[in-house]
C-alpha cells in the first residue's frame, strides 16, 4: 500500500479536496471590528433572540452551516459528513446544531484549533474517497464561554493585559471532491505541547510552542521555506503569543514575520477589554471563512497555511494546578488556479 505521508506528520493529497464554499457569522462586537465587512452576517445582539447564550451559539452555528450549504448550492442529502466542535462542555452547540440536519455527525474538540482539526479530518474523508462533500463548522460565544471558563458575564472585574476575548462567531466550510475553489494540498496534525504555562489568562504564551512546532514540522515535511506561502494565518495566539511564536521559530532559523497574521489580532481593534486579542473556536473559523477564503478564491493569495492553535485545559485542571497542554494543526490551501 502506498501512503500519502511526508516526513513526521504531514499528509498530502493526490486528489486535493476543494473548499467549495465558506460562511462566517459574527456578533455585534466582531461586526464592528476591522474585518466587519468580510462576514456574511452580523448579529445586532449577542442573544440572537434566544433565551440563553448557549442556544444563541447553536443558532449562530446553524446559520453558518445553512449559509455554507446555500453558497455551495448543495442540499443536505449531498453532504456525507458533518464535522463540528465548539468550546462548551460536551460540545453542546455542535450537537444541538447537528440534530437539525439529516447528515452523519462527528463531534470534535480541539479548543481554538477545532477548525483546522475539522478541516484536516474532512480532507481525509474527501481525499480518501469516503465522502463527496463534508461540512466543517465551529463556533464560540463570548458570554457562554465566559460563564463556563471564568465569571458570570455581569461580574465586574479587571482583565489582565495578557487575557484574550472569546469571539462570538461561527464559521463553516464545505469540502468537496470536486468543484471550483481553493484546494487543500496537505495537512499537518500537531502534537500536544506543554511548556508548563499554568496561567489561563495567558493562553497565547501557552500555545506558542505548539504553533512553532507544527509550522516547523510542516515546512520540514514539505521541504519548503516560509516564502513559499503568501500567508500563515494562526488562530488565536493573540498579540503576545504571536510574538513569542515567531521568536520560537526564529530560534529554529525560520522567519515568518512578513507573512504571519493572527486571527485573534486582526479580528478586533485594540482595547483594554479585548486584551491580547480574540480567541475561541469561532475566531479563526470566521476569519478564515470570511476574509481568507474569499481572498484565496479570488487568487489574491496563492498559498495559505492555516494554523489553528488550541489550549486544551479546563477550569478544573487549572484549579488543580495543572499546566495548559496545547496543540496546533496546519492546513495548507492553494488558490484555485494553482
Amino acid at each position, binding site marked *: 500500500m502506498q501512503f500519502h505521508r511526508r516526513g513526521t506528520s504531514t499528509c498530502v493529497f493526490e486528489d486535493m479536496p476543494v473548499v467549495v464554499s465558506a460562511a462566517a457569522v459574527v456578533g455585534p462586537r466582531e461586526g464592528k471590528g476591522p474585518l466587519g465587512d468580510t462576514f456574511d452576517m452580523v448579529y445586532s445582539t449577542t442573544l440572537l433572540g434566544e433565551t440563553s447564550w448557549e442556544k444563541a451559539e447553536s443558532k449562530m452555528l446553524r446559520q453558518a452551516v445553512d449559509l455554507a450549504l446555500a453558497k455551495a448550492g448543495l442540499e443536505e442529502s449531498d453532504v456525507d459528513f458533518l464535522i463540528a466542535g465548539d468550546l462548551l462542555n460536551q460540545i453542546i452547540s455542535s450537537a444541538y446544531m447537528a440534530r437539525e440536519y439529516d447528515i452523519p455527525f462527528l463531534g470534535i474538540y480541539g479548543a481554538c484549533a477545532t477548525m483546522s482539526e475539522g478541516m484536516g479530518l474532512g480532507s481525509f474523508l474527501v481525499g480518501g474517497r469516503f465522502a463527496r462533500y463534508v461540512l466543517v463548522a465551529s463556533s464560540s460565544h463570548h458570554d457562554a464561554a465566559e460563564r463556563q471558563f471564568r465569571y458570570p458575564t455581569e*461580574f465586574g472585574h479587571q482583565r489582565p493585559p495578557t487575557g484574550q476575548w472569546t469571539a462570538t462567531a461561527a464559521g463553516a466550510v464545505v469540502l468537496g471532491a470536486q468543484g471550483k475553489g481553493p484546494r487543500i494540498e496537505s495537512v499537518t496534525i500537531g502534537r500536544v*505541547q506543554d511548556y508548563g504555562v499554568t496561567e489561563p489568562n495567558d493562553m497565547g504564551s501557552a500555545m506558542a510552542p505548539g504553533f512553532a512546532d507544527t509550522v516547523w514540522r510542516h515546512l520540514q515535511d514539505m521541504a519548503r521555506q516560509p516564502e513559499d506561502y503568501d500567508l500563515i494565518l494562526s488562530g488565536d495566539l493573540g498579540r503576545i503569543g504571536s510574538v513569542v511564536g515567531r521568536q520560537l521559530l526564529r530560534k529554529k532559523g525560520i522567519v515568518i514575520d512578513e507573512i504571519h497574521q493572527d486571527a485573534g489580532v486582526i479580528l478586533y481593534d485594540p482595547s483594554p477589554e479585548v486584551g491580547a486579542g480574540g480567541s475561541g473556536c469561532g475566531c479563526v473559523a470566521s476569519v478564515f471563512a470570511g476574509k481568507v477564503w474569499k481572498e484565496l478564491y479570488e487568487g489574491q493569495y496563492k498559498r495559505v497555511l492555516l494554523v489553528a492553535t488550541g489550549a486544551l485545559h479546563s477550569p478544573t485542571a487549572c484549579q488543580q494546578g495543572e499546566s495548559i497542554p496545547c496543540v496546533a494543526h496546519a492546513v495548507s490551501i492553494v488558490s484555485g488556479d494553482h
Partner: protein
Amino acid sequence: MTKANIREQEAYSVFLEDFRPKRATLRNIVVAFLVGGLICTIGQGVLTFILSKGIPLKQAYVLTSSVMVFAGALLTGLGVYDRIGSFGGMGAALPITGFANSVVSPAMEYKREGFVLGVGAKMFQVAGPVIVYATLTATIVSIIKLYVF
C-alpha cells in the same frame, strides 16, 4: 515526549518574561483609589442624609449599607456595574456595592438553569469564599480578643 521537562519549562518561563506586558499597576492603584473613594463618598453622603432625618447612628449604618447594596444590585441588573468593575478594578470590588455585584451577577447568569439548581445553587459562586473566610477570620479574631486580651 512533548511535555517539556522542568529545565525546559523554566527556560521557557524566563524566555517569556521579555514578551509579557507589565500590568499597569500604578494606573490601577490610582483608578481604584478614585473609584473606591467615590463610592465611599456617595455612601457617606447617604449616611449624612439619613442622619439628618433624625435616625439613630446604629440604625443609620444598617440603612446606608442596605441602600448601597441596593444600588450595586440595581447597577448590576442594568448592566453597568461590570463596566465600573473593569475600569475601577479593586476600587469597585471592595466596597459593599462590589459584594452586591458578586451575588447578583451569578444570580442573573444562572436564572436560566432554574431557581433551585440555577439561582439558588450558584448565587454565591463568587461571594461564597468571601463569606466563608470572613466568618472564619472573624471567629478567630473574636476568640483571640476574648481569651488573650
